């Protein structure tokens, strides 16, 4: 932590906003219905596109008749896959550091074969979306259905056809990790537990569906793209590449984004097609997914089956973990981040809180004819956490140990850092012991156990579940860049001081509601000494912000925030240098506080920033000779000493299971989390809570259901359940603070911690409740029928 700034750290600077629960300045606009989401952008000559999507999981397109559609009212164009391919080149979702990862070229509109229900293969652009949809119905398509690979368990069987003949089989990627003496550890173990865990497919269900508006201004040679997206610079780069445009010809603007959760950071065929159509038709074209399209074509996630076992000593030490993960990712690895990352994370993260030395994991990633999967909030984390925490609870039961006790015994001690986990991950500073201790006290564990025992006698089945976890945040180039993906891991912030003493800060990290702009304003205000209400933040525009990665993988605060901090400090240094020249004072004796240049020691005001601004901007002729003020400062930041800043936490869930109906009632939920320096408790806590609720969704409700032919069975919010307010408990959040020494602010990420740990806590709680019945569940979502099946009632 920096001791500069006049001997004060950022936490005790007189006007520090860091660590304070400051409301987000940009939230007022959203509260008044004045947000600007993509569908709110008004553009003249707009064409609305609707896509014809495959009704088959796998089929050859024999013929496509578009003449009638072209004659329909309002229709501007009907465009097929081959026509679009003339201006938009295909892509392949592989990365160099995933050795052996394979996929096939994917087109914006499928050319002659469709490979999942919902894959777009023909576009209609019309004067309204309704007219475009009318025309879709007039397109005659002849399909030859092909065998569909629906079940990932049989995708690798020799008699299962390869979805892409050129690849020979359906294995996209395989990773094997074997550390220590796993076989010997299991041979010598006092206790071995094993389980097969199922993780259903689910998806992000952003309330604002995916949306993109592409406007090609031929006269300017400029494609302006309004996009509901997390990574504008990445989108710009990819549009340039596949539409053969120079960098300066593409501007991507991401204003308000109605939820993202990792869904809006991938390249989608329909979005690429929309941009290509704008070029082709030389007019703006807009695509807004309807909800059915969202379920069919947003990336899905999870869909893993993990068989795993854990070895223990007689005293309860975890000796080894051995696991096998199988995941189905749909017909293509998604571009450009690939669909191998989730399985890779499961391998990296499983058992991450613990100090065992023997670890073996195999992950196989297979192709199938379902919607493509890719990175969604807490990529791999809920799977890794469930596997380890499920096994730990099984071990505790067999050994007669308390769930807290076995975790306290096995977590890497707080004084053991820095160190490496069994999978090889580098851990700078975690706090499992402190977090467990805090949680135990916070939830009054012993009293809760007593209540559970009393109620059990009355036939009320309550359970307590714990889940310790680690989270990957602040990723360096190790995540994507080293594999050849043109995804920035560095981010920047440019700060300008205006004449009245106001600040404009533009940042390359983006806002989807996490509060990015809010924390940037807090940091900038603290660093520059300008009141927060005089700070305006600009984000989400490739033309007006520094180059950067955007917001994903819990990196906005830790990386973008540090860039803003450094830029703010640089600007402040520039300001006191000029003020010193004017005031004939040593700049080192000056500070900026509350919008004025002050004497560092006494705090006495020497000159308001507005006066300084007046001189600098309007009377530069009166400045001392040789003084050239630079009231703009830019700094960039990327973590260099660790590939990732791991965080940790522990969650607990208290549930009641109705053993007659199988319904699970969530009574209470707790989370203790360590994201390093807490910039804004108000924002972090609700991030954690939101993440927990999304994790609960996956644990209990959310499931993309397919039949054996690869047909999607639920495509509306009425039959894909997401958590509702009445089903959710109040959630208590607390923090342990282990700042990262990688940056001055010391902030790590917090966006995915909730989702990482919640499912395991819930499932462990359900199993704790079911224990007297000798029943247990291991397949998510744990719907009532899963519970009743476990109880042997159905």
């Amino acid at each position, binding site marked *: 932590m920096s001791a500069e700034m006049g001997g004060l750290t950022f936490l005790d600077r007189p006007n520090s906003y860091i660590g304070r629960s400051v409301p987000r300045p940009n*939230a007022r606009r959203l509260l008044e*219905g004045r947000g600007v*989401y993509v569908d709110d952008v008004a553009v003249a000559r707009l064409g609305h596109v609707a896509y014809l999507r495959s009704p088959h999981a796998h089929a050859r397109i024999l013929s496509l008749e578009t003449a009638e559609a072209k004659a329909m009212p309002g229709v501007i164009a009907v465009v097929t896959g081959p026509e679009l391919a003339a201006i938009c080149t295909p892509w392949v979702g592989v990365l160099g550091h995933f050795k052996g990862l394979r996929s096939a070229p994917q087109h914006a509109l499928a050319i002659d074969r469709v490979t999942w229900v919902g894959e777009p293969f023909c576009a209609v652009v019309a004067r309204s979306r309704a007219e475009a949809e009318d025309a879709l119905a007039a397109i005659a398509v002849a399909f030859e259905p092909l065998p569909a690979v629906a079940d990932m368990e049989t995708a690798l069987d020799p008699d299962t056809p390869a979805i892409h003949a050129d690849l020979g089989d359906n294995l996209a990627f395989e990773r094997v990790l074997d550390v220590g003496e796993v076989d010997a550890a299991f041979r010598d173990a006092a206790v071995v537990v094993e389980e097969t865990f199922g993780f259903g497919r689910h998806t992000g269900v*952003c309330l604002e569906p995916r949306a993109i508006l592409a406007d090609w201004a031929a006269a300017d040679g400029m494609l302006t793209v309004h996009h509901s997206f997390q990574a504008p610079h990445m989108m710009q780069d990819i549009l340039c590449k596949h539409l053969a445009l120079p960098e300066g010809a593409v501007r991507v603007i991401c204003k308000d984004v109605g939820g993202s959760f990792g869904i809006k950071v991938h390249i989608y065929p329909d979005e690429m097609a929309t941009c290509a159509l704008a070029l082709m038709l030389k007019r703006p074209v807009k695509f807004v997914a309807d909800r059915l399209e969202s379920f069919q074509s947003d990336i899905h996630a999870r869909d893993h089956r993990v068989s795993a076992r854990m070895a223990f000593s007689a005293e309860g030490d975890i000796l080894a973990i051995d696991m096998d993960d199988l995941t189905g990712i749909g017909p293509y690895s998604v571009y450009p981040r690939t669909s191998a990352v989730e399985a890779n994370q499961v391998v990296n993260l499983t058992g991450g809180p613990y100090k065992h030395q023997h670890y073996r994991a195999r992950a196989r990633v297979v192709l199938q004819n379902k919607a493509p999967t890719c990175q969604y909030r807490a990529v791999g984390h809920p799977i890794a956490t469930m596997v380890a925490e499920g096994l730990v609870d099984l071990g505790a039961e067999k050994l007669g140990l308390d769930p807290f006790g076995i975790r306290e015994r096995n977590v890497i001690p707080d004084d053991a850092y820095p160190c490496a986990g069994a999978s090889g991950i580098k851990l700078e500073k975690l706090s499992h012991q402190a977090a467990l201790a805090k949680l135990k006290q916070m939830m009054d564990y012993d009293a809760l156990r007593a209540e559970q025992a009393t109620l059990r006698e009355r036939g009320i089945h309550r359970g307590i579940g714990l889940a310790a976890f680690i989270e990957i945040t602040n990723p360096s180039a190790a995540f994507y860049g080293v594999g050849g993906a043109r995804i920035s891991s560095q981010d920047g912030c440019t700060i300008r001081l205006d004449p009245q003493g106001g600040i404009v800060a533009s940042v390359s990290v983006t806002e989807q509601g996490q509060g990015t702009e809010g924390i940037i304003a807090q940091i900038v205000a603290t660093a520059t000494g300008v009141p927060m209400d005089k700070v305006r933040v600009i984000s989400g525009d490739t033309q007006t912000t520094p180059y950067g990665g955007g917001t994903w993988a819990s990196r906005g605060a830790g990386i973008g925030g540090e860039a803003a901090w450094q830029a703010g400090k640089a600007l402040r240094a520039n300001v006191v240098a000029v003020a010193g020249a004017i005031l004939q004072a040593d700049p080192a004796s000056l500070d900026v506080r509350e919008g004025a240049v002050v004497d560092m020691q006494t705090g006495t005001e020497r000159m308001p920033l507005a006066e300084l601004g007046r001189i600098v901007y309007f009377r530069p002729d009166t400045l001392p000779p040789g003084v050239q003020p630079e009231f703009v400062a830019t700094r960039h930041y990327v973590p260099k000493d660790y590939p990732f800043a791991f965080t940790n936490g522990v969650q607990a869930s208290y549930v009641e299971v109705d053993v007659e109906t199988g319904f699970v009632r969530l009574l209470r939920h707790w989370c203790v989390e360590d994201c390093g320096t807490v910039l804004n408790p108000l924002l972090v806590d609700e991030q*954690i*809570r939101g993440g*927990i609720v999304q994790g609960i969704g996956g644990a209990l409700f959310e499931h993309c259901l397919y039949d054996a032919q690869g047909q999607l069975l639920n495509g509306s919010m009425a039959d894909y359940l997401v958590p509702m307010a009445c089903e959710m408990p109040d959630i208590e959040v607390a923090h342990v603070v282990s700042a990262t020494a990688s940056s001055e602010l010391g902030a790590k990420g917090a966006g995915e911690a909730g989702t990482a740990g919640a499912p395991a806590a819930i499932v462990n709680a359900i199993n704790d409740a079911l224990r007297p019945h000798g029943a247990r569940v291991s397949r998510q979502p744990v719907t009532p029928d899963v519970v009743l099946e476990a109880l042997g009632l159905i």
Partner: protein
Amino acid sequence: MSENRASENPDREHAVAFTLNGEAVRARVPARMHLGDLLRGAFGLTGVHLGCEHGVCGACTILVDGRAVRACLMLGVQADGTRVETVEGLTESGRIRDLQDAFHTRNALQCGYCTPGMLVTAAELLAEGEEAGDVPSRDVIRAAISGNYCRCTGYHAIVDAVAVTAQARHAARREVAE
């Protein structure tokens, strides 16, 4: 088939007149256009958010004759003769200023997409509470907003914001009564 379609002409326009955020308005609306699209398209009220268009998510919730209604489940033609209020109108009238302040202070919103619908539903709940003279419990608030999905917040802060507003209004009423 296409002739049949033409004879039904779903785009045939109908004249409607209604009160929108306190102003008398007129519009010609295609028969098949839902009220959400009409408010967004013809009147630029983009605070009406469309999340599912199946009446499930609640993002498009507005008040029609004082009752919370899904704008996506009502046809534009059905607005004829009604009194429609959206988040824009409720904002300008100042009627939900306290609720908006509470949402802001408690960070009861993240991406903001569900927020207008959530505020409208909460406004209706608060109005009902005022009529009944009571303060809704957290459970009652949770039940009331269960037709409004939020994917960001975890709901906890929203419940806090509605609860604190209900308590403040109740206290203000008591003060007036005393």
